[in-house]
């Protein structure tokens, strides 16, 4: 053979070297360490690879749209298709050896190595996350065993699922945002950059116009600003916030079908979804109606109190002056004056106990009669006096009853044990005024006084005169009778 024919021309050392080379070649072939051979065909050499259909897997992978790569049993990259290079933004020659692993962090490297090891035996899938440029990308990897002629390895496909994951994350985020919005106690309205309503929660729906979504803010909710009604509108606030300037704590009146919402505190903040650009604004409205109603009531009460104090002082001055002009001695003055002031005070106590409301005629009368007799004693009868009166009427009526009682105690029915007094409701007059009658009986014989004291004046003037109200005092011999007419608006028929 050729070796024998050459033997004579070669040294022993060269022969040994050639033998060693031949043996090494056979060993390498047997042990699968080579996968190509050079065949001499005439004057030229040709290289044949032992990959079997090896070339065809590359052709096949290259034709695929999704990223694909082949690895040997040690996990070394043999081949990456163009789609994968594009996905990972790398040149094909940048993927030699373990460069792909170098792109992964520790956690994803572990996932990738595990997939490579498992896919040598059977089909496996897993997800990895890779930073490509500035973006975090997610890939679904599917690995399966593959034979490259004499060697076996793994083929892995890379499917980009970043968009799918982002969509799922966005959907989850949207769901979360919606539930936050829905759970808020305050009314929340979200507007886009042009000031149109895009989202609204249940609390806001109650105070907005019908179908507010898509409407400009000022049409969706009707607000007026007490401090600057001409200068500002809801639309201005939304425009400011959407422009990047937050607005906080403005008070506004709101026109709405919800009866329990009349005043709100409005705040608006720019809505920044990503980056620095505002996407619109978020408007929150806090219901101030109860607080505002309490404030208004407080102001009303303060005004009322002021008015009443002034009236009372004027009345005290008048009583003092008129009492002084009718009494002869200091002692008489003192007695009459303090009696009258005490009557005034008693009515005020009643009024304040009843919060200046819901006072009845019988309450005023009882207080005046209390020092002298009780209705249960049988001397005094009351009928139909369960009628509510306003505070002004209560004060006047208190003075009238005081004068009548003082007179009765001094000279009339209450000055003797046998005397009787009846106070009763006579009925409504045609103009709606209420008439009650004070009638004394079985007391001493009555003669009209020769001079008219202030008591008499007070009685006749306290409730006004004429058809709308007033009193008529009669000194009958059997006892004093007084017709008291309370104007329509001074009493409330129960």
């Amino acid at each position: 053979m050729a070796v024998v024919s050459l033997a004579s021309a070669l040294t022993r050392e060269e022969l040994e070297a050639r033998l060693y080379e031949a043996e090494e070649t056979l060993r390498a072939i047997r042990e699968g360490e080579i996968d190509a051979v050079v065949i001499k065909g005439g004057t030229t050499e040709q290289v044949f690879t032992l990959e079997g259909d090896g070339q065809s897997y590359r052709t096949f992978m290259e034709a695929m749209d999704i990223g694909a790569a082949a690895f040997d049993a040690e996990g070394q990259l043999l081949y990456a298709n163009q789609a994968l290079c594009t996905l990972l933004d790398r040149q094909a020659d940048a993927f030699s050896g373990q460069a792909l692993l170098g792109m992964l962090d520790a956690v994803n490297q572990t996932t990738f190595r595990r997939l490579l090891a498992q896919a040598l035996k059977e089909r496996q899938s897993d997800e990895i996350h890779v930073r490509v440029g500035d973006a975090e990308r997610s890939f679904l990897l599917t690995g399966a065993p593959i034979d490259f002629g004499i060697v076996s390895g793994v083929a892995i496909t890379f499917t980009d699922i970043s968009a799918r994951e982002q969509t799922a994350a966005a959907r989850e985020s949207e769901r979360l945002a919606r539930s936050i919005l829905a759970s808020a106690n305050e009314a929340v309205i979200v507007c886009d950059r042009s000031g149109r309503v895009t989202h609204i929660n249940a609390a806001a729906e109650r105070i907005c116009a019908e179908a507010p979504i898509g409407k400009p803010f000022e049409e969706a909710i009707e607000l007026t600003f007490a401090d600057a009604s001409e200068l500002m509108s809801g639309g201005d606030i939304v425009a400011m916030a959407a422009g990047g300037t937050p607005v906080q704590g403005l008070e506004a009146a709101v026109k709405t079908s919800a009866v329990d919402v009349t005043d709100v505190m409005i705040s608006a903040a720019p809505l920044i979804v990503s980056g620095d650009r505002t996407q619109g604004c978020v408007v929150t409205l806090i219901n101030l109606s109860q607080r505002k109603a309490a404030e208004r009531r407080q102001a009303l009460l303060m005004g009322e109190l002021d008015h009443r104090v002034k009236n009372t002082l004027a009345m005290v001055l008048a009583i003092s002056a008129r009492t002084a002009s009718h009494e002869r001695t200091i002692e008489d003055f003192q007695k009459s004056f303090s009696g009258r002031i005490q009557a005034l005070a008693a009515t005020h106590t009643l009024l304040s106990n009843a919060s200046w409301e819901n006072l009845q005629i019988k309450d005023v009368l009882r207080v005046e009669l209390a020092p002298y007799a009780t209705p249960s004693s049988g001397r005094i009868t009351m009928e139909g006096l369960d009628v509510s009166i306003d505070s002004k009427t209560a004060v006047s009526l208190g003075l009238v009853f005081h004068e009548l009682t003082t007179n009765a105690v001094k000279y009339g029915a209450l000055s003797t044990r046998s005397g009787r007094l009846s106070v009763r409701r006579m009925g409504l007059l045609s103009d709606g005024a209420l008439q009650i009658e004070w009638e004394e009986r079985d007391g001493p014989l009555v003669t009209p006084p020769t001079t008219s004291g202030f008591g008499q004046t007070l009685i006749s003037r306290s409730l006004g005169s004429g058809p709308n109200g007033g009193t008529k005092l009669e000194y009958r011999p059997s006892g004093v009778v007084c017709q008291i007419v309370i104007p329509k608006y001074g009493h409330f028929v129960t």
Partner: protein
Amino acid sequence: MSQATNEPVKLVLYVAGETPKSLAAIRNLEKICSEHLAGKYKVEVVDLKKQPQLAREHGIVAIPTLVKELPVPIRKIIGDLSDTQKVLVHLSVEE
């Protein structure tokens, strides 16, 4: 056989494109050179797929094959160079 002190090791690796064993041989040789021959070697990689006629110079039959050209004598190591010790013995630089 002893190696002249300052003479670099000149190596020629014959591969056939990107067959798995060619790629493995390149990888293994890079590792051996960097770990054991730091700065003292010169490697030429010849792709016989592209230039099959270059097989003639060293009478290459099986691929991959590494040829140590210098220092003489010329030595061939056939296979994917996965046995590092064997490669080092043949390059006469075993430690």
